[in-house]
């Protein structure tokens, strides 16, 4: 699999994507050093071009209006709660803080902190939606009980696998970039993780459900997690029954550390 990190790709991405609806003020929007270099270049150009300066001044006057209009349009779905951008940024921040806690290295305290991460992530995930999307046309093969068991096993599998990657976190910087509007109630929040050898782009797809933004897909270096599982489950379900898929997942998990049920509804949560 070709998956090389692209150095400095974030700048191009920011240029390409329209600035986002629902972008939170005060949240880091990019590599500050890169941004400053860009600013200085613009200032030196303006010194030699008064027309450009006048146009920029006019644009600056209009900026608050246009930004507000764009925010209103894009965040119309999420007017009552935090924006999709804030939801992603807050969740990443909370998870990073727990992982950076020295207590996480203590094996006695790690299970409790893992549970804390799970709860934090769970709040922002629409597991039923992920289950439906990964099963695609085979969803109708599942009755309610089978689907619940599938979602339970699938969420456990994904959580157990990815928590081990998250635990390798070594203080890498995560920058939440812009929000791209996909539909009236759906957005994609772009982010990048700065590692020593470059950047890893990670994009989050969110849907607005009952006043909150919920995650339904993650793209790591352009590879969608849901599409990847969709192909795997499709390959299995073309010949096998739902219970056999569930059995496969259960077998896969037997050798892994048990994690609590990700799909269990919490108090006051509508499933």
């Amino acid at each position: 699999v070709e998956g090389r990190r692209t150095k400095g790709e974030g700048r191009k991405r920011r240029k390409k994507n329209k600035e986002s609806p629902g972008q939170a003020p005060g949240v880091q929007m990019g590599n500050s050093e890169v941004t400053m270099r860009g600013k200085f270049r613009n200032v030196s150009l303006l010194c030699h071009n008064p027309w450009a300066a006048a146009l920029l001044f006019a644009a600056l006057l209009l900026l608050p209006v246009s930004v507000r209009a764009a925010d209103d349009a894009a965040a119309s779905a999420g007017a009552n709660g935090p924006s999709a951008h804030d939801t992603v940024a807050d969740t990443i921040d909370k998870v990073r803080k727990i992982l950076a806690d020295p207590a996480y290295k203590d094996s006695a305290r790690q299970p409790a902190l893992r549970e804390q991460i799970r709860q934090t992530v769970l709040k922002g995930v629409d597991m039923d939606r992920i289950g439906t999307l990964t099963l695609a046309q085979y969803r109708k093969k599942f009755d309610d009980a089978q689907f619940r068991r599938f979602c339970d096993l699938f969420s456990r599998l994904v959580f157990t696998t990815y928590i081990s990657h998250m635990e390798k976190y070594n203080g890498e910087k995560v920058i939440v970039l812009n929000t791209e509007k996909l539909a009236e109630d759906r957005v994609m929040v772009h982010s990048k993780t700065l590692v020593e050898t470059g950047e890893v782009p990670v994009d989050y797809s969110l849907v607005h459900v009952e006043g909150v933004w919920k995650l339904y897909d993650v793209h790591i270096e352009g590879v969608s997690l849901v599409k990847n599982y969709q192909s795997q489950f499709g390959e299995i379900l073309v010949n096998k029954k739902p219970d056999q898929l569930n059995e496969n997942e259960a077998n896969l998990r037997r050798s892994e550390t048990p994690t609590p049920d990700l799909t269990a509804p919490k108090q006051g949560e509508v499933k």
Partner: protein
Amino acid sequence: MTRICRVLLCVTILLACAFAVAPRTARAASDDVWVDEKAGSSGTPAATDYTIPDPLWAWNFAWFHVNDSVYFWAIRPASKGYGYAVPKPARLGLDNFFQNLGFPRRLLNSAFQGHLDETGTEFCRFLVNTTIGIGGFWSPADRVLYLPSHERDFDQTLGVWGVGMGFYLTFPLLGPSSSRGILGIAMDSGTDGASALPGGSVVKTINSTSLGLNPYESVREAAVDPYTAVRNAYVQNRIQAVSGKE
């Protein structure tokens, strides 16, 4: 000699057929998986067409398992040992060095794909990193000048030119590819400096694995059906690369 020519001719004809006959992997209207739900009939979502014909399944499946064993029994232990023996700054320097050696491949392919701005950037990066960066072991183009590098390869170029991916093909040791990828690998090995160095590709793989840059393990260990997971990740990655989003 005539026999070799015949074999080559047959392979060429087969490849031409593969590109012409195999349907080009369709790209969804959007990267969003949700689109499929709307497109699906009877209220259930339809699977995205991120598939590739796999007529040589038995060959591919067998080599997938061989490569998988090679990764877990040879490459990973070797990279761990190498990681203990060689300090991280040296490994990062070597990663920069190999990245710098890939300059001709990136330069040519960004030009072939019409990204002339990237071609210029690549040229500047190479000059700066080779001179100030002491042969490319340090990357002032990234750290000081913020000149972005763009991964470009010949398989991607063929895709941009409208050549279909063809069918899926797993190569011994090289991993997942496609009938289009054969040409890509051949061209890239001729234009990437790492391939020209004796043992360069092996050292590059072990070095990048020791730095945690090999994405294979992540895809493999989260998979219910590892073969399909790797094939799908390859297809998604190539489609993204060709569409220019990556």
